[in-house]
């Protein structure tokens, strides 16, 4: 081949992971990088992807495609020879060749070993059974997702970062999850005991069962995993067991090549191994006795290694203070440096607010900050990290430090978020990728960047874990001359305003028409678009009950036609069956309608009602007319409003029933039907904890118990199953109704349009909902009162009105007229 005639040196990269490819990217940026032609071997069959985000893939927040870092086209464009699915099995330093498992043999001038790490797998009996896996690569995630589809119970072994993210992801996928941890508190290497306990409490509330101080003795099972046996006798049944107790540098190849290894492949400050032609970066290396599991220092290694490869003989790698964060939606954790006071001269300063779920601890030594642990509010994490790294003298602000940056630096009143404008250029913004404010500003100015995604692709800032996204957006706004305030995603392209700002503006400025809202917020299109109009229409209905009149032209077809459009252009009709209870006369009427209008399909729905499918649009008013005569009203199966209230038969018939669940369901449905909400809402009432009505996957579920009623909120079925969070246990039906009205109104007033209760609660946190509904009785009563008031204007049956002739144009075609 022409390999021999190519004058460039040959760099062989072993490992197609984040560390190796980051080094190659850095190398390609340098003038000296041109001296190499590059071959990359990857053991996995995939291109290079962001391993940190695997937990987001597992949780369903991202797809595999979204975590790909470099596509095959990128390798081709940069003339990199990529060999995937073929691990290197030998480095022959005598003949200067690298040999792969499939027998590919290449000569090298320089080697970069970036073999990463492998999951720690102690000799636990049963490990390796079908239904057991690690949490390391795409193949593991595929295994876990497959198990989540067909099985129910998962046990995760390991309560560190990875184990918790695995547990959360599986929970999001609908499994019941238990987590076994060897130590008494979670993430004990990154969090102190107090923060670890808060974390455990929050995740326990989200339905993960914890077995701390748990030493795994055996994974039981014959054909596949059936459970986990702990040494103290506890046994946890399981269909899937995920081992995530840590990682070990992957050093086999280096060891076989007689390179110096210890825990990892030993490298010096220049990232060279004991053979000067062989470099190594990433989780496989050991540098001055330390091994690495977080991304930030590995990016530093990549930079130094690339510079050295490109001929810069001065670049040196130094370990710096590190920060950790956890990727679980709604759980914010940050830690850096020392977790606790280590000697008599160290001081711990703590701030704790259990009600809001906040905890902050900083560790001070000799007038300098040496550690910070944050739980619940991590906005100041990078600021604390900067103070630790720069060894800033903090004696002046010591008494304010724990309250956060805004307070400690006494920013002007009104400013709450971090003040990016006054940050120095060398302030680190993105901890993962080591990007400073200065380099973001430069990139924005030099390359004319205008969006977050552009800044991400050019600078990598906020492209890894995403926790600094707000800061990057603020810097973008500063640099482009926009407002410094934190920019929430806008409603649509017509405006820069976010949902919350618009909702607050509607109330604060008494905006009562869509035109007024669009004028107040400087809409770019005078009539808005299909995204903002339905949202504004809803926000106005919610804010001004009885005053604002609905704009049917700003509704999706289903809500305008009060029926669900089907793929062939016909409609489906679902009358309300209160609490799933019907009567012979209602069933007669439904049967008569189905026959009279030749309705092809009559189906029982999952929400305990009857669906008439295949109704012609022009027949809708007559169908509704007949149903109205039999006393039935719209079931709002098409609406962003209350749909079904599913019930079981309860104490009236069932031998297990503790309360009248059917009767309570009917009361709830009678109270809440007809209301418009940000998205659809489903209720259920179960008469006992056997939960036949499946109340734990509804927006609001009631589970009756002997002592009263457990209220559960924020669940849903669908693609991303989410189990409800417990809200409160109450004693009487009246309490249930009051809480329900208040919950509906809080959701109506504060969620974003098209946001169901599950993502809304994941966003604001169940602690917040409890604070508003449980802790604040006064507030709860006034929310309920506002709900009942707005219901006065919404409980008109839309079907009866249309059967009587309203909106007749909607349901008739323009007639064919005589030829002109």
């Amino acid at each position, binding site marked *: 081949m022409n390999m021999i005639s190519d004058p460039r040196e040959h760099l062989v990269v072993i490992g197609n992971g984040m560390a190796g490819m980051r080094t190659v990217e850095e190398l390609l940026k340098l003038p000296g990088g041109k001296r190499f032609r590059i071959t990359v071997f990857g053991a996995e069959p995939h291109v290079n992807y962001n391993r940190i985000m695997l937990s987001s893939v597992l949780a369903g927040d991202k797809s595999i495609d979204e975590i790909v870092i470099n596509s095959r086209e990128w390798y081709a464009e940069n003339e990199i020879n990529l060999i995937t699915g073929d691990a290197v099995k030998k480095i022959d330093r005598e003949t200067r060749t690298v040999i792969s498992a499939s027998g590919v043999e290449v000569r090298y001038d320089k080697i970069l070993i970036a073999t990463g790490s492998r999951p720690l797998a102690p000799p636990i009996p049963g490990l390796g059974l079908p239904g057991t896996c690690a949490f390391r690569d795409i193949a593991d995630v595929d295994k876990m997702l497959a198990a989540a589809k067909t099985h129910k119970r998962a046990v995760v072994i390991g309560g560190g970062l990875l184990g918790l993210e695995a547990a959360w992801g599986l929970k999001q996928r609908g499994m019941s999850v238990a987590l076994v941890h060897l130590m008494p508190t979670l993430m004990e290497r990154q969090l102190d005991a107090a923060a670890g306990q808060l974390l455990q409490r929050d995740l326990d509330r989200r339905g993960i069962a914890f077995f701390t101080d748990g030493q795994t003795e055996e994974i039981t099972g014959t054909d596949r995993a059936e459970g986990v046996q702990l040494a103290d006798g506890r046994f946890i049944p399981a269909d899937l067991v995920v081992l995530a107790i840590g990682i070990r540098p992957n050093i086999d190849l280096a060891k076989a090549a007689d390179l110096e290894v210890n825990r990892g492949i030993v490298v010096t400050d220049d990232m060279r191994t004991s053979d000067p032609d062989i470099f190594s970066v990433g989780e496989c290396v050991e540098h001055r006795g330390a091994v690495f599991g977080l991304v930030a220092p590995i990016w530093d290694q990549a930079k130094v290694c690339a510079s050295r490869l490109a001929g810069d003989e001065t670049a040196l790698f130094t370990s710096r203070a590190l920060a950790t964060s956890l990727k679980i939606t709604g759980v914010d954790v940050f830690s850096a440096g020392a977790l606790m006071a280590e000697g008599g001269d160290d001081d711990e300063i703590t701030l704790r607010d259990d009600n809001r779920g906040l905890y902050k601890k900083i560790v001070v030594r000799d007038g300098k900050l040496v550690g910070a642990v944050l739980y619940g509010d991590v906005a100041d994490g990078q600021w604390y990290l900067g103070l630790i790294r720069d060894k800033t003298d903090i004696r002046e602000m010591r008494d304010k430090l724990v309250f956060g940056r805004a307070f400690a630096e006494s920013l002007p009143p009104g400013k709450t978020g971090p003040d990016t404008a006054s940050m120095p250029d060398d302030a680190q913004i993105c901890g993962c990728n080591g990007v400073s404010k200065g380099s973001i500003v430069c990139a924005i100015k030099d390359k004319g960047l205008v969006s977050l995604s552009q800044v991400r692709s050019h600078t990598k800032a906020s492209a890894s874990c995403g926790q600094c996204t707000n800061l990057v957006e603020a810097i973008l706004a500063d640099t482009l001359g926009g407002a410094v305030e934190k920019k929430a995603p806008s409603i649509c392209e017509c405006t820069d305003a976010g949902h919350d700002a618009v909702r607050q503006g509607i109330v604060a400025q008494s905006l009562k028409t869509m035109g007024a809202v669009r004028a107040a917020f400087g809409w770019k*299109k*005078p*009539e*808005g*678009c*299909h995204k903002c*109009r*339905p949202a504004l229409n809803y926000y106005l209905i919610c804010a001004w009950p009885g005053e604002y009149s609905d704009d049917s*032209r*700003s*509704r*999706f*077809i289903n809500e305008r*036609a009060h029926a669900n*459009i089907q793929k062939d*252009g016909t409609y489906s009709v679902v009358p309300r069956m209160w609490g799933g209870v019907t009567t012979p006369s209602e069933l007669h009427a439904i049967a008569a309608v189905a026959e009279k209008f030749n309705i092809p399909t009559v189906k029982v729905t999952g929400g305990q009602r009857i669906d008439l499918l295949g109704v012609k649009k022009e027949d809708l008013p007559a169908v509704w007319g007949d149903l109205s005569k039999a006393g039935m009203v719209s079931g709002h199966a098409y609406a962003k409003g209350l749909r079904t209230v599913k019930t079981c038969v309860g104490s009236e018939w069932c031998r297990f029933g503790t309360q009248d669940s059917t009767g309570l369901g009917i009361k709830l449905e009678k109270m809440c039907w007809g209301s418009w909400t940000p998205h659809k809402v489903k209720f259920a009432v179960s008469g006992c904890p056997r939960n036949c009505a499946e109340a734990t996957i509804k927006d609001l579920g009631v589970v009756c118990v002997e002592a009263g009623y457990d209220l559960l909120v924020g669940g849903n079925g669908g693609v991303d199953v989410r189990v409800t969070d417990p809200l409160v246990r109450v004693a009487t039906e009246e309490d249930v109704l009051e809480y329900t009205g208040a919950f509906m109104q809080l959701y109506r007033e504060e969620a974003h349009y098209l946001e169901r209760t599950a993502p809304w609660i994941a966003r604001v946190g169940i602690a917040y909902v409890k604070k508003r509904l449980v802790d604040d009785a006064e507030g709860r009563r006034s929310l309920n009162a506002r709900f009942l008031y707005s219901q006065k204007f919404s409980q008109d049956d839309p079907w009866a009105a249309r059967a009587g002739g309203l909106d007749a*144009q*909607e349901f008739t*075609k*323009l*007639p*064919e*007229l*005589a*030829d*002109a």
Partner: protein
Amino acid sequence: MHDVVWKKIGPLSNIPVRGARRLCFGLGGKPIAVFRTGEDKFFALVDECPHKKGPLSEGIVSGNTITCPLHNWVIGLDTGIAAEPDEGKTQTVPVKLENGELYIGLELERAPA
């Protein structure tokens, strides 16, 4: 150009502002939708989205565009062309207003007998 036959379809007030109606007759077997904008401009298109043939007459009218109810493609009422990043075109149909009555222009050989 082919000869065009103008068919009267009734007064503009038959069509809701920022709305549309579907016609009983079609164009070469395809349904036709007539649109009226917030500024009382009127347009007619074959009532099929270029994407999956969704009924455009059931969509939301904003300015001079219609958003398909099935997958939110945005189609220009004047051109029938889909807004970026989507690509496609829906056939436009000539329409005129005379003495308050709307007329649809049908090509002669395609007009119903």
